[in-house]
């Protein structure tokens, strides 16, 4: 498969902060490529450079075979973008927004109507197409933005946190549309997210990004396999004591304490679980609960960085807070 995106030591610094640090990734034609990482990992900066909004400090990248600095206009013609923050004109109707986009991207007038009608059907907005955007819900706006990003038949569609701030049900819908649109238009999708489930559900390959660097890159299944085994979660009355017993006496190195709960990744979950209870009991530590589960991407992230991807499960901004975040630089 040919590569649609290739970066070579792509770097971007803001004063003393290196937001993206010598990035080397390749994205194959036709795949959904997920950039997963916490807020501030450099995902949006990476996408901004690939979309020619931001110039790299050093290094190069090619999108659809065009250099992102020297052939920016060609790159722009090859890509569609759904930004993290809303970027529609809410004083115009859905259809007007799409027509404007079609004109900005030089789509022949004769084709505009049929393309717009088709894409509106695909995102199920044909009934609301002639309403002003300001009357749309958050989910509907997102769908319109997805549609807009595709009218000019881009080779690559960039989605920057496509479901940020949407409720769970709407997120499900948006995921469905992303998959359907990708199939219908045979395009490559690059998406950034800090939601584990989103990366897991959508991506063919996932690059885990932290502090501007890719720390792991593979399919979701392979990434989880690298953890080799199961995760045991133990709640005990003296977690610190049990932690040292598990790491020292039982020699289980992939162990950590997260919010007072011990999590350990082991090869043989079923066999190890009773032994942990045994060790605790022998040392007069009371085990409140213990459970076993398959590793998820959160564990993968933890494994590579030693941190949780989202230290707090902070609420996403809604309403005014979301509006205030929409400024560009």
């Amino acid at each position, binding site marked *: 498969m040919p590569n649609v995106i290739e970066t070579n030591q792509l770097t971007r610094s803001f004063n003393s902060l290196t937001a993206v640090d010598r990035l080397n990734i390749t994205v194959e034609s036709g795949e959904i490529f997920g950039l997963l990482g916490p807020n501030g990992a450099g995902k949006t900066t990476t996408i901004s450079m690939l979309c020619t909004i931001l110039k790299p400090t050093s290094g190069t990248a090619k999108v659809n075979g065009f250099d992102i600095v020297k052939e920016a206009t060609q790159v722009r013609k090859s890509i569609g973008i759904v930004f993290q923050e809303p970027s529609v004109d809410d004083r115009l109707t859905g259809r007007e927004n799409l027509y404007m986009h079609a004109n900005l991207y030089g789509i022949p007038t004769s084709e505009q109507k049929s393309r717009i009608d088709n894409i509106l059907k695909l995102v199920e907005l044909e009934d609301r197409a002639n309403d002003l955007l300001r009357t749309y819900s958050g989910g509907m706006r997102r769908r319109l933005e997805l549609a807009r990003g595709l009218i000019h038949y881009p080779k690559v569609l960039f989605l920057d946190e496509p479901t940020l701030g949407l409720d769970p049900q709407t997120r499900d819908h948006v995921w469905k549309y992303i998959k359907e649109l990708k199939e219908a238009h045979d395009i490559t999708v690059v998406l950034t997210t800090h939601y584990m489930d989103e990366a897991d559900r959508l991506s063919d390959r996932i690059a885990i990004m932290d502090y501007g660097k890719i720390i792991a890159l593979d399919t979701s299944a392979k990434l989880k396999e690298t953890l080799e085994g199961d995760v045991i979660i133990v709640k005990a009355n003296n977690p610190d004591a049990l932690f040292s017993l598990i790491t020292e006496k039982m020699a289980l190195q992939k162990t950590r304490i997260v919010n007072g709960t011990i999590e350990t990744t082991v090869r043989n979950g079923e066999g190890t679980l009773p032994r942990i209870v045994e060790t605790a009991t022998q040392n007069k530590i009371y085990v409140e609960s213990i459970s076993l589960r398959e590793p998820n991407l959160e564990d993968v992230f933890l494994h590579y960085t030693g941190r949780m991807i989202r230290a707090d499960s902070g609420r996403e901004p809604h309403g005014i807070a979301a*509006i205030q975040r*929409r*400024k560009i630089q």
Partner: protein
Amino acid sequence: MTELRGLYTLWLREVKRYLRDRTRIVSSFVQPLLWLVIFGVGIGASLRGAVPIPGLTYQQLIFPGIVGQTLLFTSMFMGISVIWDKEFGFMKEILVAPISRMSIFLGKMVGDSTDALIQGMIVIILGLALGIRIDPVTFLACLPVMLLITFGLVSVGLTVASFMGSLESFGAIQSFINLPLFFLSGALFQIQSLPDWMQVVSKANPLTYGVDALRNIILGGTWQPLQVQPLYLDIAVVGVFDLVMIIIGTWAFARMK
């Protein structure tokens, strides 16, 4: 061709947004009405007989000035669309489109100028309602000149706004620009009777030539003794100002992220 279509679509957007904003259109009547009726009649009454041109009321003298003032205020205010677009994220959609920054600037500029021109036309109609006599030919002759005046002024507004991060800072800067330009344009008096230093400043003010051009058209021969310069020279000065501001504006948009 793509560039022209992009320019057209951005023009269309500005005009559509403007025409849908009823409040803005209605409120645009108020200020010029106050100037023409209260200020015009009030000062006119206290000046009785002191208007420099025989047979001309003070209201008639300042009418072209108030048209110019409307063009100035509206044009500068249009810069707010840039801040609005930044604030609501729409600017990104435009900035990543595969068209040049010059087309983006020109599309917005011509669109906003069209809106300002409509505001100016509203004031002329208002003038007709107040009994100021303008024949259709004069009215039509005003339009291209008014458009020419707005090009440069809108460019100033857009350029300033492209540097501003918030609506508040734009508002603050605006009042620094608007009032001096207005007062020093000769909109409310003929600049010949000003002290030398003020005349020098007025003559450096591009709006002076816009107002003079409008007076040359609307007041015709009556204005000739007091004109700053002939109409064609006024138009030339305004044209050069437009050109310079368009170049600066394009540059300002090119550096916008």
